[in-house]
């Protein structure tokens, strides 16, 4: 367990209000992505609230075998599954069109070469890319427009930095499905950034 986590845990056990604020601010985003994948938008916030209460009840018994983040996300997945036994298996790989499309077959000629090559972006660091307030909003909107599982898998993988295997365990999906989902999501976000770089608009 990271030193920061140990310190935070001590303060939480002592009932320090600021420690709870830090905990919620740091981890609620990732927890919501897990809950969203399992119970959808309508119930995600309730599942996260359930999870927070379960976290408080189990703080004393937290053992540092896993990282604090992994522990919190496991509790979230369980809270979501316990409360809403919704069957989403059949729609797992359903796809939806994205506002700016994706990088699909139309971009390639019949011999598999680029027909319309990727446009060069104006910036070459993430910080420079994100200085545009509109692009930040546009990315958030695109993440929301993705199908439930695509969005969650992408957020957990790229935004939260989880390993694919960890995501599979939390969401109980196969590795091959996770790979398909993250790839589809990335191509759509790629198309969004490309569109923004080309037009300056979302």
């Amino acid at each position, binding site marked *: 367990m990271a030193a920061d986590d140990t310190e935070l845990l001590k303060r939480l056990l002592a*009932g320090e*209000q600021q420690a*709870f*604020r830090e905990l*919620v*601010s740091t981890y*609620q*985003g990732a927890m919501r992505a897990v809950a969203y994948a399992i119970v959808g938008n309508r119930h995600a*916030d309730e599942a996260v*609230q359930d999870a*927070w*209460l379960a*976290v*408080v*009840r189990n*703080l004393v018994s937290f053992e540092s075998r896993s990282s604090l983040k992994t522990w919190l996300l496991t509790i979230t997945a369980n809270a979501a599954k316990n409360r809403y036994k919704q069957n989403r298996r059949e729609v797992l790989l359903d796809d939806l069109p994205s506002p700016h499309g994706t*990088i699909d*077959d139309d971009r*390639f000629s019949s*011999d*598999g*070469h*680029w027909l319309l*090559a*990727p446009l*060069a*972006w104006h*910036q*070459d*660091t*993430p*910080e420079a*890319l*994100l200085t545009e307030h509109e692009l*930040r909003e546009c*990315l*958030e909107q695109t993440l929301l427009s993705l199908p439930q599982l695509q969005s969650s898998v*992408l*957020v957990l*993988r*790229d*935004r939260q*930095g989880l390993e*694919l295997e960890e995501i599979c365990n939390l969401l109980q999906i196969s*590795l091959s499905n996770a*790979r398909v989902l*993250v*790839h589809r999501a*990335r*191509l759509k*976000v*790629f198309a969004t*950034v*490309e569109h923004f770089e080309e037009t300056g608009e979302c």
Partner: protein
Amino acid sequence: MLTCKQYVARSSDYLDGQLTFRQRLQMRHHVLFCPNCRRFTRQMRLMGAALKTLPEPPPVDLEMTVKRMMREQSGGQ
């Protein structure tokens, strides 16, 4: 040799370390000769880094959540 379309189809697996050694070599061989796919990969990495950097909005229900948690903690002791 891979086509650009095949290259793009495998790009996420490449970035996530999900390809075999042989497949990775095929990918590297392709970009050696293909500036378009080189650019595509560079921008895919950039996009991933941007998502990681994207600031998270503070939780709207922060204070309420904290209050509930503290109440739960003191009630349980």
